């Protein structure tokens, strides 16, 4: 059918937010995304060995982390819009039955209220794990995050802090989200000293990084790649484990060019690396994981090895966090760089529904940029 073909090509639509894997389009977009799980399956990481590993998807990994956080700290709370019945992405399923409505609850529809409440709760020594339903709706809480959470410790000379605060929010493209269910607002928060920004790329990472974020003595904004909630599946240890913040990870070693990214974009970059390899280009792929404070040293040493850098993110290129990485690495590795730092990012438009496939930093855009950087 012509119409269904058209839909597939668009990589749009078809899936509901809650059943991304079940009904996702079979177009290029889906293939791109599926490989995140593949990457992770290929790699055997130290903490995933042994018994008790089950293949689970990303939202279940988040759910496990929240169970553990509530179990291991009686002063931990989970709340947000529609969190009580399990959340619109099912991340909080079963929590309120298990831990009670006083610790896991719905809030009124008010993001500034959610974060303000969370700041206060955290200031009293609790772990406040607040959910913002979509990263696109975090902006009413911007003041509470930027002027309050981020400066709570500093402005009081460390008499007060809200380090127990973690704000979780699904971010990024999903194939059919349009303006307000697709955005990647991480760069806004990277401009704010006093908070940490963390973005996982897979289920295993999500669980370990979320537990670290919750237990980190600083407020953390934790963006979850919603495209991967159901799509990314990998073995995740059932036990309580944490992955270090502010530590980037080389997830693919190479010698000709360094690629840096985070979250869902890594799987797209991974595919570009695989293809570049066929052309004899050896790519080193790094997952930044924590955007601030970020692991400059690891990127620097990789670029000192390869002499080239490419950064990729879904957010608009102008003022994106790629710009910061590019500037810092240029400062540090100026004499070693053999080509300008390449950025393959979202375009400088609002996130468009029908034009999403054109807007996104696709595998081939990255591949082209790898080639032109290497052949500079």
């Amino acid at each position, binding site marked *: 059918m012509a119409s269904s073909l058209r839909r597939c090509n668009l990589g749009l639509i078809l899936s509901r937010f809650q059943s991304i894997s079940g009904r996702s389009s079979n177009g290029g977009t889906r293939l791109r995304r599926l490989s995140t799980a593949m990457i992770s399956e290929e790699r055997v990481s130290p903490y995933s060995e042994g018994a008790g590993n089950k293949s689970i998807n990303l939202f279940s990994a988040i759910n496990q982390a929240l169970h553990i956080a509530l179990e291991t700290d009686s002063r931990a709370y989970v709340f947000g819009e529609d969190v009580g019945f399990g959340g619109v992405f099912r991340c909080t399923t079963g929590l309120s039955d298990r831990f009670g409505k006083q610790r896991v609850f719905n809030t009124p529809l008010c993001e500034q209220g959610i974060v303000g409440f969370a700041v206060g709760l955290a200031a009293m020594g609790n772990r406040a794990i607040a959910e913002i339903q979509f990263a696109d709706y975090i902006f009413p809480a911007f003041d509470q995050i930027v002027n309050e959470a981020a400066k709570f410790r500093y402005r009081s000379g460390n008499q007060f802090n809200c380090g127990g605060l973690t704000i979780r929010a699904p971010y990024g493209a999903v194939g059919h989200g*349009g303006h*307000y269910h697709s955005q990647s607002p991480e760069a806004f928060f990277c401009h704010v000293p006093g908070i940490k920004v963390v973005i996982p790329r897979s289920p295993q990472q999500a669980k370990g990084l979320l537990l670290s974020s919750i237990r980190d003595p600083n407020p953390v904004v934790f963006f979850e790649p919603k495209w991967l909630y159901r799509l990314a599946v990998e073995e995740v240890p059932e036990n309580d484990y944490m992955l270090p913040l502010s530590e980037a990870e080389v997830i693919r070693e190479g010698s000709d060019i360094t690629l840096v990214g985070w979250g869902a974009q890594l799987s797209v970059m991974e595919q570009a690396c695989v293809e570049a390899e066929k052309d004899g280009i050896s790519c080193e792929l790094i997952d930044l994981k924590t955007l601030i404070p970020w692991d400059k040293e690891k990127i620097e040493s990789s670029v000192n090895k390869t002499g080239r850098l490419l950064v990729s993110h879904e957010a608009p290129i102008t003022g994106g966090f790629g710009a910061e990485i590019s500037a810092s690495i240029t400062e540090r590795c100026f004499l070693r760089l053999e080509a300008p730092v390449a950025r393959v990012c979202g375009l400088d438009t609002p996130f468009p529904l029908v034009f999403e496939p054109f807007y996104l930093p696709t595998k081939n855009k990255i591949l082209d940029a790898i080639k032109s950087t290497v052949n500079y």
Partner: protein
Amino acid sequence: MAIWLSRSKKIAHLLKPKIAYFPQPKIAPSEFSYKIYENHVNSSSFGTLSGENIRSPHVFLDNSATMSALNRQWRRTESTRAGEQVETVPYSDDNYEDENQALDFPGGRVSFTHEMKFISEAADKRIPCYRVLSDDGYPIAGSRFEQVDKETAVKMYKSMVTLQIMDNIFYEAQRQGRISFYLTSTGEEAINIATAAALTSDDVILPQYREPGILLWRGFTLQEFANQCFGNSADYGKGKQMPIHYGSNKHNFFTISSPIATQLPQAAGVAYSLKMDKKEACVVAFTGDGGTSEGDFHAGLNFAAVMDAPVLFICRNNGWAISTPISEQFRSDGVVVKGQAYGIRSIRVDGNDALAVYNTIRAAREMVIHEQKPVLVEALSYRVGHHSTSDDSTKYRPVDEIEHWKTARNPLARFRKWVHKNGWWTDDEESELRGSIRKQLLNAIQVAEKMEKPVLAEMFSDVYDDLPSNLHEQEKSLRETIKRHRQDYPTDVPV
């Protein structure tokens, strides 16, 4: 148009209906007295109404009696300290001059009291809900309402049916994967259509998202709805937004934006402009019950009140905000009581009674425009459908609650009974209408689906009035990429 004083045909209709799910707020403990709150001391705003401005004054004019009752209540003596009796004299014009009895304070004199009284968190009775038609479609005894002529009534009914069928068919289209998302107004057809009918086309609508009936009433065609949902080249939004984010300048309907409640402070600004331009029109701003929790709701109401902006705020209280019931949204007696705190006249109406909504909105609109100040309407209804196609509401609410509202409280059924009884509508007309709307919709969907998507250049247009150099550059580079990798891109978007 005449004002009707209509009589019920059956006594049974006088019985107060039970509203199944609206939770009862706790009654205040008796040691806290709350007379001030309860009796609407601030009656000045009611005093300015003139018959000329109001076509259905019955809705609110009952305050003089309350005022004298209030004064009587206050005239009593009480003890403040052992052995010492002090007479408390209530605020009244006579003792205005007594510095000891009242505080001259911005906003008007505030009387002193020896009683330490807290205003209660709840009145002992919930604010009643204005209603005209019984569930059986009979005007309730004693209810006063403006007669709706046959033509308007039939148009209202037909529009409600059209909206219902449109929802069903688009919902199905989403299930079949033909559109990416949909959200119905099922259960709220009366609020949609009766509001639209009571306004004029000059009134500017700032919607939330469950009010497509306003557009429908104003002549936005089924094809135009379909074009938006399919994001094709005829969509006024140029395919940039998700389905149901309609907008039409020619219909004075601002484009829908997903972020909740952002339209409410904007409404005050739009209305201020109408005011400065001395327009015989108002702004109608919608919110859901959930939306009233956002800071923007409070900002919007307060700005409209302070700026004397002609905004008619309509809250569709449908009991739910996705999975969150109103009992977890607010502890007040719903939304209607919030108006007074901002100095905004307010009313609660049965949102499933098309005649009541129609009358309420007409009266409210008159006030808003002729007194140049905001009014808040809370329409009680129920979200009969799932929140959207991304939701399964049986996960969080009982099926029989949904069923109750779908059947016993169905707004279409109620209004239909009334038009039917008036002899304005027959079963034959009904089935003919349904058949024809269905056909039109299926056709509209086919046309919309076949139509090309907007051209690629539209992706870059409208970010600003003009293309800045960064976008020029990005467009150029994108076009080169497309040439190299045509297979990566959808073929139905002309490049």
